[in-house]
């Protein structure tokens, strides 16, 4: 049995607001990744997926706090350590992130080569300047960018697609074991989107990235990107299984609704009516009794609001619904 490269074990994280309110944004998330695997996390705004990113990386900067659970890379826990140690040994090296809106995360006042060198130097002070540049050059060429041009440019001089490649390049410079991509394609045109995904695949194939967590609200994208999909709602996974299962045979009512809301441009499918759901996700400041989706669920039973729903195995995937089959 291959050892998982990334394990998240009943992770719980909360926000403490100025008024003393505790918002349990991530409430018991568990999954594991083997080398070469991509897990897609699908969910809408407010479901907790962005918090999950910080939580998985060990970045607990107030008002975000760890409530419980563990995160392990290559069997070693990355939680509970000093912020400095975390920054030096974990971030970028073991686990790295491609943030949302990455196009704007490049410092416009510095050249790309300086930004990239910073990344390496912050983890390894001894690096020699010349050797460093050569290393950057090889890597950027490998990623399909005209290295000398790009490295010596300022971010503003590069087109959007190239900037996204640069961000991906810098985030993966230290060959991280796990990469968390948080909506990496949401601000891009479809053609650039495709190129970015292609790049991420290449990085995985070349072993530069060990495994990937791909977060998005766009389901059709996940169909082609991930091996497994976890659907997140109100801080929990409501369904977790293989991509084909989740997309073509969803079992949990929320997943079904999500799949039903997709509109496709394929010939023959163009007339399908999307499914509507009234209401909004629950407010996580107050503890919720019973199923969190019960308020909006089209097939909710009276008992749904009373009993806490657990993940159970239904047709070879995990479903958080006592009535699913």
């Amino acid at each position, binding site marked *: 049995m291959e050892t998982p490269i990334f394990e998240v074990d009943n992770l719980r994280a909360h926000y403490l607001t100025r008024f003393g309110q505790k918002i349990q944004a991530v409430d018991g998330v568990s999954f594991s990744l083997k080398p070469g695997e991509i897990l897609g996390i699908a969910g809408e705004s407010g479901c907790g997926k962005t918090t999950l990113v910080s939580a998985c990386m060990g970045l607990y900067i107030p008002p975000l706090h760890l409530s419980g659970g563990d995160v392990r890379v290559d069997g070693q826990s990355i939680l509970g350590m000093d912020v400095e140690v975390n920054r030096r040994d974990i971030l970028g090296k073991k686990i790295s992130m491609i943030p949302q809106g990455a196009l704007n995360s490049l410092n416009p006042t510095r050249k790309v080569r300086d930004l990239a060198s910073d990344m390496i130097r912050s983890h390894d002070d001894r690096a020699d300047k010349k050797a460093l540049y050569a290393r950057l050059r090889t890597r950027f060429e490998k990623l399909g960018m005209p290295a000398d041009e790009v490295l010596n440019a300022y971010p503003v001089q590069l087109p959007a697609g190239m900037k996204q490649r640069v961000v991906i390049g810098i985030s993966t410079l230290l060959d991280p074991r796990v990469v968390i991509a948080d909506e990496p394609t949401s601000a891009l045109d479809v053609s650039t*989107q495709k190129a970015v995904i292609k790049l991420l695949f290449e990085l995985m194939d070349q072993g530069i990235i060990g495994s990937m967590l791909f977060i998005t609200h766009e389901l059709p994208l996940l169909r082609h990107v991930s091996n497994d999909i976890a659907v997140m709602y109100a801080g929990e996974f409501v369904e977790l299984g293989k991509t084909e299962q989740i997309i073509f045979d969803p079992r949990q009512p929320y997943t079904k609704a999500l799949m039903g809301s997709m509109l496709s441009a394929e010939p023959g499918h163009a007339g399908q009516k999307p499914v509507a759901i009234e209401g909004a996700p629950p407010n996580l400041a107050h503890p919720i009794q019973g199923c969190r989706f019960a308020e909006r669920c089209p097939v909710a039973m009276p008992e749904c609001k009373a009993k806490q729903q657990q993940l159970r195995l239904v047709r070879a995937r995990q479903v958080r619904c006592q009535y699913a089959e």
Partner: protein
Amino acid sequence: MPSEPKFQAEALSRSYGHGKKRVLAVKNASFTIPSQDIVSIVGQSGCGKTVLAKMLLRLETPSSGSLLFNGKPIASERDPRAHFRSVQAVFQDPFSAFNQFFTIRAQLRSCFKLFLRKPSRDEMEARVDAALLAVNIKPKEIEGKYPFELSGGQMQRMLLARIFILRPEVLIADEPTSMVDACSRANILDYLMKLKKELDMTIVFVTHDIGLACYISNSIFIMHQGEIVEQGPPERVISQPTSHVTRQLLQDIPDLHREWLSRSSS
């Protein structure tokens, strides 16, 4: 006898800046939008679709070419309010679309500024109530509330409630569902369909999502770098695209049943 087309454009262009810095946001657009049609203008960001929509709305003036509304040049009446009585819009971001300093109800009431004959106070309140009910919002829910106190979905419905009050002939919808969650998307589309049926409206839908365009419209315009590169019914456009732009667009969209991009190691 076919009725007058709502919009007719001939070599419509809009440029910004002068000399070297001149940019053509819309280039030579020629099209007809028949009455009671639902037309989608599809394109990636920066293709000029929003500028074109603003010209139809009379919020931007064309730099060259002609644009006719109901057979007459769009700027034939000096007062743009005459145009706004017939052509209205819903915007993408429901929060930035409303003034944060006034209550939502007061802002719905300000719609009546456009009316030639201002209704009585009671009539105004009754019509606002009716519009709210049409989008499934109980008037009490928004009593005395300011925009920031409501959710995105509710605010988007406020934009639609405006349309129920104003009852225009044409609605320009600029990406009305892109900032709304997937589950609420279908709701918004349902309200738009309801509006169309009740008011026999012509709808111009601006979006980057071709799947959405196919679902909702009976005619699609594909825009790229300011030009309309393709026009036609959805089924034809996606099954037999004539422009390479359309072909590339269809190829690049991740879809469930087609091979989009494969991983060599999977």
